[in-house]
C-alpha cells in the first residue's frame, strides 16, 4: 500500500482534510467564544449594581441614583401589550394557513408577506409607527402606539411559530375528530388548538423575548427619558423601557460616567430577562418534543 503511487496523493488529501477541519473548528469557536465572553463580562460588571433598591425604585437626580423599576414595568407593559394586539391576528393567520388552505396563490402570497415582514428593518417600523399611530391615528407618543408598533414587528415571528405548532399536531387527531362528526371549526377548537397550545405558548415567549429588547421601533413612538410620572396610568401615557433607558443614559444624558454602574445593571437585568425567556422556550420545546405521545 505504502509504495503505490497513489499513497502520496492519499496522504496529501488526508493533510488537506486535517487542515481544513482544523480551520473550520477554529472558525466555529468564534461564536461560542463571543457568547461566553459577553456573558462573563456582563455578569461581572453588572452584578455589583443589582440591589433590591435598584430593582424596586424609580430613578432620582437625573437617573444618577435610584433604580430602574419604572423601566422594568414599562418593558413588561409594552411587551405584553404587543402580544395582546398581535397574537389573535397571528393565531388566526396560522389557523388559516395550516387548517383551511394548504396550497395555492393566496398561501404563497401570504407566506412571502410574512417572510418580507420579518426582514423589514426595525427602525422602519419605528417610522411607520410614528407616522401611523402617533400622528395619523392620533395616539400620540404613548404606550398604545408603542405596543401597536411592536405588534407589527412581532407578527411574523408569532405567525411562523403558531403555524409550526399547529402543523406538528398529527393528522390522525384531525381525522379522528372529523370522523366523529365534528365540523372543521369544532375540530380546530376542541382538538387541534389544545394539542398545539404548548407550541403556541413557546412561540409567544420567543416573540416576547424579541420584543423586549427592541429599541428602534419604540424610541419615536412610546418612550421618554424624563418621565413626568414614573408609572403609566393609561394607554396614552409615555413609558420608558430598559433598552431605551440604557440608550438614553449612554447617548444623551450628560452624566455619562456617574451612571456607569446603572448602565451595567440595566444590561445585566435585560440579559437575564431575555435569556430566561429564551431558555424557558427552549426547555418547553424540548420537553414537548420528548413527551410527544403521538
Amino acid at each position: 500500500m505504502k509504495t503505490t503511487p497513489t499513497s502520496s496523493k492519499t496522504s496529501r488529501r488526508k493533510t488537506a482534510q486535517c487542515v481544513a477541519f482544523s480551520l473550520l473548528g477554529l472558525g466555529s469557536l468564534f461564536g461560542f467564544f463571543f457568547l461566553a465572553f459577553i456573558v462573563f463580562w456582563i455578569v461581572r460588571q453588572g452584578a455589583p449594581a443589582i440591589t433590591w433598591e435598584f430593582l424596586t425604585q424609580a430613578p432620582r437626580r437625573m437617573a444618577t441614583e435610584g433604580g430602574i423599576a419604572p423601566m422594568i414595568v414599562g418593558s413588561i407593559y409594552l411587551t405584553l401589550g404587543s402580544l395582546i394586539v398581535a397574537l389573535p391576528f397571528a393565531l388566526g393567520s396560522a389557523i388559516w394557513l395550516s387548517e383551511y388552505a394548504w396550497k395555492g396563490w393566496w398561501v404563497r402570497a401570504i407566506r412571502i408577506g410574512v417572510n418580507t415582514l420579518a426582514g423589514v428593518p426595525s427602525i422602519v417600523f419605528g417610522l411607520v409607527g410614528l407616522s401611523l399611530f402617533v400622528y395619523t391615528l392620533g395616539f400620540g407618543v404613548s404606550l398604545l402606539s408603542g405596543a401597536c408598533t411592536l405588534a407589527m414587528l412581532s407578527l411574523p415571528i408569532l405567525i411562523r411559530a403558531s403555524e409550526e405548532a399547529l402543523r406538528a399536531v398529527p393528522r390522525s387527531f384531525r381525522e379522528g375528530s372529523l370522523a366523529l362528526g365534528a365540523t372543521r371549526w369544532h375540530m380546530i377548537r376542541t382538538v387541534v388548538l389544545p394539542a398545539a397550545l404548548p407550541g403556541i405558548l413557546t412561540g409567544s415567549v420567543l416573540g416576547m423575548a424579541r420584543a423586549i429588547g427592541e429599541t428602534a421601533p419604540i424610541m419615536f413612538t412610546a418612550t421618554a427619558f424624563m418621565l413626568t410620572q414614573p408609572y403609566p396610568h393609561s394607554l396614552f401615557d409615555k413609558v420608558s423601557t430598559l433598552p431605551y433607558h440604557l440608550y438614553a443614559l449612554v447617548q444623551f444624558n450628560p452624566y455619562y460616567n456617574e451612571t456607569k454602574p446603572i448602565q451595567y445593571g440595566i444590561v445585566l437585568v435585560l440579559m437575564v430577562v431575555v435569556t430566561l425567556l429564551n431558555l424557558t422556550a427552549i426547555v418547553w420545546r424540548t420537553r414537548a418534543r420528548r413527551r410527544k405521545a403521538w
Partner: protein
Amino acid sequence: MTDDHPGRTPKRWHRNPDRTVFFAIALVSLVTLATIIYFIFAQAAPFVGKLRLSPEGTISKYGLTFTTTRISDLFTTKWWPESDAEQFFGMVPMIVATAAITLGAMLLAVPFGLSAALFVGEVGPRWLKDVFKTVLELLAAVPSVVYGFFGLIVLSPHVRETFNVVGGKTGLTAAIILSVMALPTIASLAEDALHAVPKTYREASLALGATKWQTIWRTLIPAAASGIIGAVILGTGRAIGETMAVLFVAGNAPFLTANLFRSMRPITSAIALDMAESVHGSAHYHALFAMGAMLLLIALTLNWTAEWFHVRLLRRQGVREG
C-alpha cells in the same frame, strides 16, 4: 399537505363562515406590509418631489413652499436639515457608510458563519450540533443595545489602541459588532441548507473514494450553494437594517468616506438620532422618511432575492412548494 387534507370543505364563503373569517385574518400580514410601504413612501414623497437637477434647483431662501433640494447637494457632506437660510441634506455619505459597514461586516461574518455551519453540521459530533443551535439562538436573542454597549465599552478602546484612531468609534467597530449579530442568521440558515442536501449525494461521493473534506468542498457546498447564498443575503439584510448597535459605535460623523477607520454615520443611525429633533411635516422630517424608504427598498430587495434563491433550491431538490 396534499389535496386530500382531512375535512376539506367547499370553497363558497357563505357555506363556511369560519373559513372566510380566518382568511380575512390571514390577510393581516399583507395588510401590514402594505401599510408599512404606503406610510413610508407617502411621507418620503414630499422630499423626493422637491428634488431638482441643478439648473432650476437654486434654493429660494424665503419662500418656504418653493424650497427645493438640488440632487447634487445630496452628495455633499453637509447635513443642515434645520437651517433657516440654506438647508442641506447630504445623504449620500450615509448611504456610502451603510454600504461600507455592511460589506465589512459580511467579510467577517461569512467565513466564520460558514465554517461554523460546516464544522458543526458535517464534521463535529451530534451533541455539538444541539449545543451549537442553542448558542446561536442565544446569540440571536441578545438585544441590539447590549451588543452596542459591549462594542462601545469593550471593543472601541481596543480599536482605538490597535489602529490608533481617536475615540475608537469607527466604521470598523460597527462592522465587527454587526458581524457577530449577523453570524447566527448566516450560520443557522447555511446549516439548514447543507442539511437539506440529499444523503445520496454524500454517499455517492464517499463511495467514489473522496475524503470527507472533498465531499464537503466539491459536492455539498455546490449542492447547497443556493441556500448558502440565500443565508448570506438574509444576513446582509439584517446587518443593513440594524440600528442601535451601530448607533453606539459607528461615531456618527457625516463624512463622505468609505474608509472604515473613520467615524461614520449610516442611514439607520441618522434616522434614529435626528427624528427626535425634527419637526413633524418639515423638510427634515420627510428627508428622514426618504432615507427610511431607501432602507426599506434595500431590505425588500434583499429579502426577495433570498426568497428566490430559496425557491430555486427547493425546486432543484425536487421539493414542490406547499
